[in-house]
């Protein structure tokens, strides 16, 4: 009997060693941090900062844009900053392991660039009180965890102006990822922008239930085109929608980064986010000791969002209107969501003359008039 128990115990021990070795070895791709300066004596230790991305850096989209921001921070701080990133981290338990790893490696500030990292980051933040955690697009905070977000709806409003001027069928298409307030907000702003120049426009939406799946995005775009849409916008991260539009001779926009190279005739403009300035500010906050738990929502005014590379075929009127809106956004006087706004069941959701506040914009769960169909219930 003792022999059997000993054998079982030895087997269990061996298996657990193998399992833990496998788990340790199973980490996702990481980039080697830039070499830290060693020689000059009174130079301060470089601050270590880390980023996690939900997709591959090469997606030419969301994660790519964040990585550009990271590189901008690197360029700004030079050898006072040492950065690491981990890409393609699935949202969920894996994310917690990766964030914990990064905190243990000595990173003093960690950026998590997707909504689904909120809970894992909150858990890790509780265990590492002197590390600062920054979560993009979320809503939960802690003493050492804060949130930052962009205002893509400002970009989509301007894109809507262009789309409304360019459409010949008066049908616009939107490839949506998930029916969450952020995406609904973008769709509504797109519609309002288009209606401001073309009251006959209607917007069709299809949901792909993923942030990134090029063949599915392509199918969704094709389906919208089949149903008569001739200008497409997307909330998904690849260039597939633009490429499908190009193939069919329709128009589309770039999303998250400059996608003009992927559809030279189809590309009308690209809605981008430049995360560099925010990352630089956040790291400055840590260096100066002025880091506080806040929720930062930046947009066109702070240089975070923009609509760039507007195609020459866009009529001058539309371009002028876009510039006007941009100037208003930069001055802080223009708000795309200004009443009266009616949802597509006829109910008034914003009174005349009222400029929507952040809370209203965060809680959008309806489509404005002009969008076809209902919001799918649940995610």
């Amino acid at each position, binding site marked *: 009997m003792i022999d059997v128990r000993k054998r079982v115990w030895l087997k269990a021990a061996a298996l657990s060693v193998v399992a833990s070795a496998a788990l340790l070895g199973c980490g996702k791709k990481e980039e080697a941090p830039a070499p830290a300066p060693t020689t000059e004596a009174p130079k301060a230790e470089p601050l270590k900062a880390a980023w996690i991305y939900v997709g591959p850096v090469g997606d030419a989209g969301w994660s790519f844009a964040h990585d550009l921001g990271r590189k901008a921070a690197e360029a700004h701080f030079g050898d006072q900053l040492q950065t690491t990133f981990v890409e393609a981290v699935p949202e969920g338990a894996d994310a917690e392991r990766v964030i914990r790893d990064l905190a243990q490696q000595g990173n003093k500030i960690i950026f998590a660039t997707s909504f689904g990292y909120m809970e894992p980051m909150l858990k890790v933040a509780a265990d590492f009180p002197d590390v600062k955690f920054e979560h993009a697009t979320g809503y939960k905070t802690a003493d050492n965890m804060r949130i930052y977000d962009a205002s893509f709806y400002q970009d989509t409003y301007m894109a809507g102006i262009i789309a409304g001027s360019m459409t010949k069928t008066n049908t616009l298409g939107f490839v949506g990822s998930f029916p969450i307030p952020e995406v609904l907000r973008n769709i509504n702003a797109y519609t309002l922008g288009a209606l401001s120049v073309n009251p006959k426009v209607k917007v069709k939406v299809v949901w792909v239930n993923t942030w990134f799946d090029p063949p599915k995005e392509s199918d*969704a775009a094709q389906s919208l085109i089949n149903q008569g849409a001739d200008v497409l916008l997307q909330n998904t991260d690849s260039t597939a929608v633009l490429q499908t539009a190009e193939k069919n001779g329709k128009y589309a926009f770039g999303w998250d980064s400059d996608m003009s190279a992927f559809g030279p005739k189809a590309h009308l403009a690209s809605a981008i986010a430049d995360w560099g300035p925010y990352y630089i500010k956040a790291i400055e906050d840590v260096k100066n000791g002025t880091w506080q738990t806040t929720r930062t929502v930046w947009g066109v005014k702070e240089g975070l969002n923009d609509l760039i590379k507007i195609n020459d075929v866009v009529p001058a009127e539309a371009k002028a209107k876009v510039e006007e809106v941009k100037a208003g956004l930069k001055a802080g006087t223009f708000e795309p969501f200004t009443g009266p706004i009616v949802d597509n069941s006829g109910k008034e959701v914003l009174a005349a003359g009222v400029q929507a506040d952040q809370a209203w914009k965060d809680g959008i769960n309806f489509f404005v008039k002009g969008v076809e169909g209902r919001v799918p219930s649940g995610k």
Partner: protein
Amino acid sequence: MDATALLIASSLNAGTVLAIAALGLLINEKAGIVNLGAEGLMLCGALAGFAAVVHVGATGWGFLAGAAAGAVLSLVFGWLVIWLNTNQYATGLALSLFGAGFSAFAGIPYTQAKLPDQGMSAVPFLSELPFIGPALFRQHPMAYFAVFLTLALIWFLYRTRAGLVLRSVGESPESAHALGYPVRRIRLLAVVVGGALCGLAGAYVSTVYTPLWVEGMIAGKGWIALALTTFATWRPARVLLGAYLFGGLTMVQFHLQGMGVNVPSQVLTMLPYLATVVVLVLISRNPLWIRTNMPQSIGKPFYPGS
């Protein structure tokens, strides 16, 4: 243009990928080998095809490169499974994971690359016919290749001696061996041809369907192709129709959404697999049905001389 005609056209396009991959897997399974590595093969084929077109230019080379990549990987798989008699399911899964990781790694330099524009292809006279023109005849040549492949396979499997030998290897390798046929070599040939077709399907996705490369871009189509082969009870014509059905499911769902009907997309993602399970249950209830439909030696290792 009539939206229904366009819906049919898009379904055919989506189904072509599944059809080519599933027909390759069909050849494998008719010989008795289950290749669960379809997803990995398609991913490597996609990368190889994309890389070839980036460097050389013509899509034809992309298809050849994809098929070659699939063939090489399945050669390794075949050697492991047929000569070393490793468990087919485990080895196939390993191939799938390997293919996914390797293609992601080797594909890093290609993630921002762009292919030259191809435009739409159409059959000259037939594509102008009302309704069936846009529905059936504005496809990439690969779509017609898939139909041709189906017909060729039906002829090969059921009308030629070589096809009969292949099927007999799949039904009872021991009997085929007793008759003097080189069972292992036949199986290896089936695996390599099947793998080449999977690689070709992958190359089609990355060079024509969505001309870009990103890791994981096949997004589960390999698994659907595997389910499809079983759903179609291992008959080529049913595989083709099933491919159009499965491929069409996504397009129909988007079409419905655009019309305002909200079917949860998760339900439609489940449907191919649910349908496969239903078919399996139906044909397994009767031992005679199972024997008539499923190649009997699927998954079982073969030891010549035992």
